């Protein structure tokens, strides 16, 4: 039997795909860009959802991994463009799969370092420490002039994907959409696995997890690092979408927004981040047309969601979360 939630999930995914294709048919490139933004932000928040939704780790610094992914694309791409070697004489590259790999590995390294220190703490300490580490790398990016510092770094030609012309908006959208679906699939598999069970019990009751013999620390650290890797791949795509990367990708506003996407969509849902990203981008676009002060109303919507409608979009469309 197909549950109501999966019907809604499939409808949401198809709607995003259909919107981009319809925009292409109508020649409305701008709307393809909006759909691409939804897919990328959805993927970034899907990464965070692994730590936050499944693991209960409220990371308020995930923008740092998003930014690391962005800089991986920017730095590798700009060296490939200019032909100058990078540090240790390594060549740049404009190949997206290689960039994603580098982005994910760099984020994994940062995730281990940040995770080892911050996961030893919990609750509000964890929130503040992840925020502080993100801020540290944000200031580093601002003050390090080699790759544009505060002004950011432009990517003159969008990086390449084998067999696809990434400069065509719909092609690039399809890459991002595919990445989003792959990210959600990874989360679905993880959630159903032994690792996912262990992570879930650590979130629900850490003391109990230890009492049955599951050591919480390595489970949480693994979730945190995997989560960072997924978010970093989204960051690389985001840099390619804007053909620009700047420290603002690492700012704490970005970290806050990633959490907001999850909550708007509905916590603990596989498609929550995507639904949240869609709602967020639509609010930003539509309210932005109506009023300059759209952020005020975004705040209001968020506040009302948190106080009165914790289920988010999917809670509204698909009913309460069911556990087995």
């Amino acid at each position, binding site marked *: 039997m197909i549950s109501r939630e999966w019907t809604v999930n499939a409808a949401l995914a198809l709607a995003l795909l259909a919107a981009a294709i319809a925009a292409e048919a109508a020649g409305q490139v701008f709307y393809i860009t909006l759909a691409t933004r939804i897919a990328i932000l959805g993927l970034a928040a899907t990464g965070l959802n692994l730590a*936050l939704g499944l693991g209960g780790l*409220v990371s*308020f610094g995930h923008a740092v991994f998003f930014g690391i992914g962005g800089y991986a694309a920017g730095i590798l791409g700009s060296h490939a463009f200019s032909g100058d070697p990078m540090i240790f004489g390594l060549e740049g590259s404009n190949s997206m799969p290689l960039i994603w790999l580098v982005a994910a590995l760099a984020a994994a390294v940062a995730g281990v370092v940040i995770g080892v*220190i*911050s996961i*030893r*703490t919990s*609750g*509000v*300490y964890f*929130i*503040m*420490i992840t*925020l*502080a*580490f993100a*801020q*540290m*790398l944000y*200031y*580093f990016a*601002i*003050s*390090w*002039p080699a790759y544009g510092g505060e002004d950011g770094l432009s990517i003159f030609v969008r990086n390449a994907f084998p067999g696809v012309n990434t400069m065509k908006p719909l092609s690039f959208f399809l890459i991002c959409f595919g990445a989003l679906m792959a990210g959600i699939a990874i989360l679905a598999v993880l959630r159903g696995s032994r690792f996912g069970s262990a992570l879930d019990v650590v979130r629900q009751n850490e003391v109990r997890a230890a009492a049955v013999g599951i050591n919480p620390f390595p489970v949480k650290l693994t979730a945190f690092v995997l989560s960072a890797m997924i978010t970093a791949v989204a960051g690389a795509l985001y840099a390619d979408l804007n053909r620009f990367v700047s420290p603002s990708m690492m700012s*704490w506003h970005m970290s*806050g927004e990633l*959490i*907001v996407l999850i*909550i708007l969509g509905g*916590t603990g849902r596989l498609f929550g981040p995507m639904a949240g990203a869609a709602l967020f981008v639509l609010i930003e676009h539509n309210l932005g047309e109506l009023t300059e*002060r759209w*952020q*005020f109303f*975004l*705040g*209001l919507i*968020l*506040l009302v969601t*948190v*106080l009165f409608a*914790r289920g988010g979009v999917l809670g509204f469309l698909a009913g309460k979360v069911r556990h087995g």
Partner: protein
Amino acid sequence: MTAALAIEQLLNGLQLGVMLFLMAAGLTLIFGVMGLINLAHGSLYMVGAFACAAVASLTGSFWLGLIASLAAAAAAGAIIEVLVIRRLYSRDHLDQVLATFALILMFSEGTRWVFGSFPLYLNIPSSLQGAVSLPGGAQYPAYRLAVIAAGGLIALGLAALITRTRLGIRIRAGENDREMIGALGVDIRTLYTVVFALGAALAGFAGALVGALQSVQVGMGEPVLILAFVVIVIGGIGSIKGAFLAALLVGVVDTMGRFLLPHLLATVLPPSEAGTIGGSASSMLIYIMMAFILAFRPRGLFAA
């Protein structure tokens, strides 16, 4: 590098430290008593600065502006406590983070609505303009010295409030045991509003004092907020004493790091690289310090 310059930088560090303390004291008090993490604390700092700048430009008096900053921030604090914050005490930290993040968006955009996007300027009061000669021949702005003194006095006053007064006893009772203050016959709802407004007033006061040194603009509270988080994480969440010592530590280390690191590196590197690397490294210094402290004491230096 002269001794006079070093003393000046040290005083700048102290000045940053006492301002961070005013922010951190409210945050840590609110967390200690109500168990709430308040991201919108930086917005209250901004409200104080704007109120001071607006009233000072209307009346021509910085001092009236300062009073207005206390009143406006306390009032804004009390209003959001009653409307929003008190619904969050029983929620988890994630909800608290999101709701107060939403408040930041509303405060920032609302302030832009009222005051426009351009920064306001707040003049240093005429009685505190000019510089004071320090022992050793250095000149230091009188206003900054006054800020350090004001911050120090408030720290003393807060310590006295917590240890000597009836309100302080209730606050400490609330930190230790929420049921006990109910048993003492204290109206908890009112106590929480008062504590929140007190924290807000301290933040607003800090915003006004700093507003005269920098420009008064939307978003000015956010970098300070994050530094204040670093302070209370280092000091131990809930500890006023920890917040005070950690604030001075962070203020001095940050300021001296920015001043000294490029000089130190210049002894081993060419000047331009020393400036670049020193600048980047010093901007990360306090976070690295925080990581080190947490690696050994995960609950901060003075954890309750």
